[in-house]
């Protein structure tokens, strides 16, 4: 991390005034240099200040467990784009242009992200938004054709629009247009926290309720100096790993279904529900609603129920391992999984992929390990990687991870600390402060950045779901593949539409 950046640990707050405010050229150099030195951009956004627009970048140094902060001011509604030299910010800059009506000059493919109204009335960079109506790459030629899919898809799945440039079944290029799920979460968070805030977090990406509420709770606890009791930390870890178990299992089942391997599809579809039901035993909701709250968790787990839960966990894991284990010895499955939807490791780095998809490219990044939070500061879960960047690797990483998660949950259930599960949180947040809070959701890195105003209200609250980093990976995975590979590729990433659209 170079000297221009203020460094902090995960969920360690800082006075906003301590974050270097540098001229645009210095901001640009600081971010580009950090990325050249193996840092990643975990968040990059704008906010309104009195004399214009402020850019804020948060970088992660995974090996040193440090987060770096830097900011700059844009005064003339335009700034030189970083994307040509630092492709991993491409979507962040499109978002900044859309939300604030300022132009990153020199951005190679500047187009809307969510087809939303600008937050600065009268500064609509892309004109009146119409979902899906924008430029798309086109391949020209007599036998080239375009296939358009969505927003509504064939199955029970969130909406998105996909354009394939094809020659027969061969895909030259896929472009993905999202924004259909945009509900205005970040706009509504400004001025908070309010009674609704925790529920925005619970539903930002509703299959990652624990991951997002945990990132939020950590941010609030940092800004109020709240210490979370040990038992709550452990219960949060259990809930986060149960969320991972449910989704990884569901994904392995869905991938099996897509290659017509029905035994694993049927069995994993069922055991996924067993893990959701274990989450429900913690808090009444299969998706962890109502569980994580700033200061701890809202429900304790009585000791007399631990034995039953452990038994159910072990039964579900036994069934999952048995049925998903069949995948790796079934030639028809391996034949479809291997060499399908490959993302090269250097592409993964360049576009800044995170989570399961990055670990499947051999990248050993995992917030639980690199920026340990809560119980993961004391109990380490090995980082699982695979090395081919294809559907098989993404499936295999899930398979390895779910077993580690099951071990973790079983062990933690045996050794729950005897403390309360919730502390009172001080009434107001530290004023004029900034904090970046990271967790490792089942898809990957979840980053929340909170900036407070002079009254301790949110002046800006930035949510970055792992999907935001990884959607371009899906598009690139399809290159030189077949249209029929698409469902398989898409499920092997299984990204969130609403987590991206917010």
């Amino acid at each position, binding site marked *: 991390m170079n000297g221009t950046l203020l460094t902090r640990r995960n969920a360690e707050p800082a006075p906003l005034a301590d974050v270097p405010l540098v001229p645009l050229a210095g901001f640009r150099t600081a971010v580009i240099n950090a990325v050249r030195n193996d840092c990643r951009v975990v968040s990059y956004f704008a906010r309104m200040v009195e004399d214009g627009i402020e850019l804020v970048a948060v970088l992660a140094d995974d090996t040193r467990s440090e987060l770096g902060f830097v900011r700059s001011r844009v005064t003339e509604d335009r700034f030189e784009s970083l994307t040509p030299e630092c492709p991993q910010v491409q979507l962040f800059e499109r978002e900044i242009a859309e939300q604030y009506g300022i132009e990153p000059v020199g951005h190679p493919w500047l187009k809307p992200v969510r087809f939303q109204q600008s937050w600065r009335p009268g500064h609509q960079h892309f004109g009146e938004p119409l979902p899906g109506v924008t430029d798309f790459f086109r391949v020209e030629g007599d036998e080239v054709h375009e296939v358009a899919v969505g927003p509504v898809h064939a*199955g029970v799945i969130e909406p998105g629009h996909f354009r394939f440039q094809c020659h027969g079944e061969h895909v030259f290029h896929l472009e993905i247009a999202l924004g259909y799920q*945009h509900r205005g979460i970040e706009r509504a968070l400004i001025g908070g926290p309010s*009674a*609704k805030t925790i529920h925005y977090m619970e539903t930002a990406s509703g299959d990652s309720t624990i991951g997002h509420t945990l990132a939020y709770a950590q941010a609030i606890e940092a800004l109020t100096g709240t210490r979370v009791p040990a038992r709550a930390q452990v219960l949060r870890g259990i809930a986060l790993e149960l969320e991972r178990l449910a989704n990884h299992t569901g994904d392995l089942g869905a991938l099996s279904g897509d290659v017509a391997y029905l035994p694993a599809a049927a069995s994993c*579809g*069922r055991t996924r529900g067993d893990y959701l039901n274990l989450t429900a*035993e*913690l808090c009444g909701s299969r998706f962890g609603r109502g569980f994580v709250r700033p200061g701890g968790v809202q429900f304790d787990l009585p000791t007399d*129920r631990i034995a039953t839960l452990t038994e159910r966990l072990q039964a579900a894991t036994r069934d999952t391992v048995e049925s998903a284990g069949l995948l790796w010895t079934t030639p028809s499955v391996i034949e479809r999984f291997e060499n399908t939807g490959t993302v090269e490791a250097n592409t993964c780095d360049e576009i800044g992929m995170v989570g399961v998809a990055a670990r499947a490219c051999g990248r050993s990044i995992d917030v639980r390990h690199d920026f340990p939070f809560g119980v993961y500061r004391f109990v380490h879960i090995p980082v699982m990687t695979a090395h081919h960047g294809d559907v098989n690797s993404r499936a295999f990483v899930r398979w390895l991870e779910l077993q580690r998660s099951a071990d973790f949950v079983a062990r933690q259930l045996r050794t729950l600390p005897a403390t309360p599960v919730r502390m009172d949180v001080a009434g107001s947040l530290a004023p004029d402060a900034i904090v970046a809070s990271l967790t490792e959701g089942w898809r990957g890195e979840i980053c929340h950045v909170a900036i407070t105003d002079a009254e301790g209200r949110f002046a800006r609250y930035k949510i970055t779901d792992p999907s935001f980093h990884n959607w371009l990976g899906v598009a690139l995975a399809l290159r030189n593949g077949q249209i029929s590979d698409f469902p398989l590729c898409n499920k092997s990433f299984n990204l969130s539409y609403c987590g991206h659209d917010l």
Partner: protein
Amino acid sequence: MRYPDGPPPALPAHFRGVPRIDPTRCPDGCRVCADACPTDAITVAGGTVSLDLGRCIFCPECQTACPEGAIAFTDDYRLATRARADLRLLAGEERKLADALDAKLRRLFGRSLKLRVVSAGDCNGCASDVNVLGTIGWDIGRFGIQYVASPRHADGMIVMGPVTENMRLAVRKTYDAIPDPKIVIAVGACAISGGIYAGHPEQQDGVESMLPVDLFIPGCPPHPLTILDGFLRLLGRIEGGIHAGQPE
């Protein structure tokens, strides 16, 4: 699964079904529950408390906030109604659960109901628990219910999410593409009322703002059993407050 001929599957500890309100415990002028509610689902007026299940996200905040224990969630998972007004819960008043479709529609859909499922701003919570009914555990195929890949194959649609501005056209086009007669099912607080997104300019406060709704299934998200209960009531396979294997 033996349900609906046998008992329903066990519900988890802390399961939050229909809330029970006991206004006799409410001190005069107390509004603690209403103030704690993130979706303004609770109305306190003239000594009575009413709760709109269409707005409720079944978070425990009102129950946690009430110092008198006057409001508590029960494990009654049956929530679906045919009319929006029937979702208003008033202490002491009997709830009116969903009736079956009329004879003509039951003849058409009673043994084969094909549904197109549209996520229009749902967080993937409702989508997940609508989807799970198709897996081997719940197997809605045994009732002739199936989710289909085209509106042309459908008898109706399920809408989830508050209907975002960006999905308004797609929801309308999907509805228009389904042959008549057709039904609309709103699943989840968002699709019924906008949920916590109610009032946001980026959405429509639910599907009823643009389409007639035949079945409302509250929850955030509703438990699969709640959704299935709604489907089966609509098709006349479960009637009244009681069904086989579960004494009232």
